[in-house]
């Protein structure tokens, strides 16, 4: 099973037993994605806190 990343259009392989509301990361762009529906699987960007990652 797979779905598309709304951020980068990457293909995301999904486990067969994925749950509604589960958070999965995009392997390409690292976005945190929320499963918002299951049939078909739709992913949306999960709300993120903007990290301060440097100087």
């Amino acid at each position, binding site marked *: 099973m797979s779905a598309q990343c709304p951020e980068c259009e990457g293909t995301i392989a999904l486990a067969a037993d994925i749950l509604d509301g589960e958070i999965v990361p995009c392997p390409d762009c690292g976005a945190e994605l929320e499963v918002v529906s299951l049939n078909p699987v739709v992913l949306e960007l999960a709300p993120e806190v903007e990290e*301060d*990652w*440097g*100087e």
Partner: protein
Amino acid sequence: MLSVSIVGGSGYVGGELLRLLLGHPHVEVRQVTSERLAGQYVYSTHPNLRGRTELRYSPQSSLEPCDVLILALPHSSAAKNIEHYAGLGQAIIDCSADFRLRDPEAYSRWYGEKHPAPHWLERFVYGLPELYREQIRSTRYVSGVGCNATAINLALLPLVKAGLIDQTKPVVAEVKVGSSEAGAVANDGSHHAERSGVVRSFAPVGHRHTAEIMQAHGLENVHISITSVEMVRGALATCHVFTQGSVNERDLWRAYRAAAAEQPFLRIVHDRSGLHRHPEPKILAGSNYADIGWALDEATGRVVALCALDNLMKGAAGAAIQCLNLMHGFEETVGLEFTGLHPV
């Protein structure tokens, strides 16, 4: 003796201010604040000052009136309490970005929030003596400067003043910076094994200091990019500019000499031989110099305008003391005599 207190004295800018003020002949350091470390000796965090002072950190709540209050706090702390600080210090020098922009709109655009005290913006003078010396002499409120902004502003100064820049073409400025720019608080990215030896695109686009360059030089078409490199102190701005009309080495010498004249902390570095042909940050650690220079590609009209400085000195604490000297009629260079080391 001028009585000076430092608010946010346990940070890297605070520590550098303290080092400079302890060696300043006309200043007495009154208080140095840290909430976290109140009661501790200042040399517990600034180990270079061991043996130089017995001062201990005070909490802000015990701050007393003084002649000059220097603020070295994180973003927005100064702006939120400016009335309070203005009640304590006859004069204020704020090292943060809170009062650098004159235009509240620009502030909102670049900082993503409304300015907490917009009417105070016009009372502050931007603390870059190379542009605003006379205003600084006659104000009580000076804002600090962005370290990367200063490197770029001083790199471009000679070309802007001489009107050499073709403003239809983009000005691209790449700044290479050290780790002390991020301050004294550890985070995942500052962990030595991760940060050591990097050449890391830290802010390839969207850096807020862009606003200070636009304001200082009236340039619109300017694009900056910050890369972290292996270094603790220092910044080198490499600015790519296209000239209008054809320009040769002698034109540039004239432009640079004009810009550096009467500027005690600008040195022109443009040598035909030797190892040190262009400005370099490492020999500037601890010094207030900004070294400026250039390379010219006559075939394409590109000038690579360079400026090296110590982000904690000319890019922060040194600039603040330079302003303090101007505000109080002292010799501009007093307390800022250290010339930097070599080799280092």
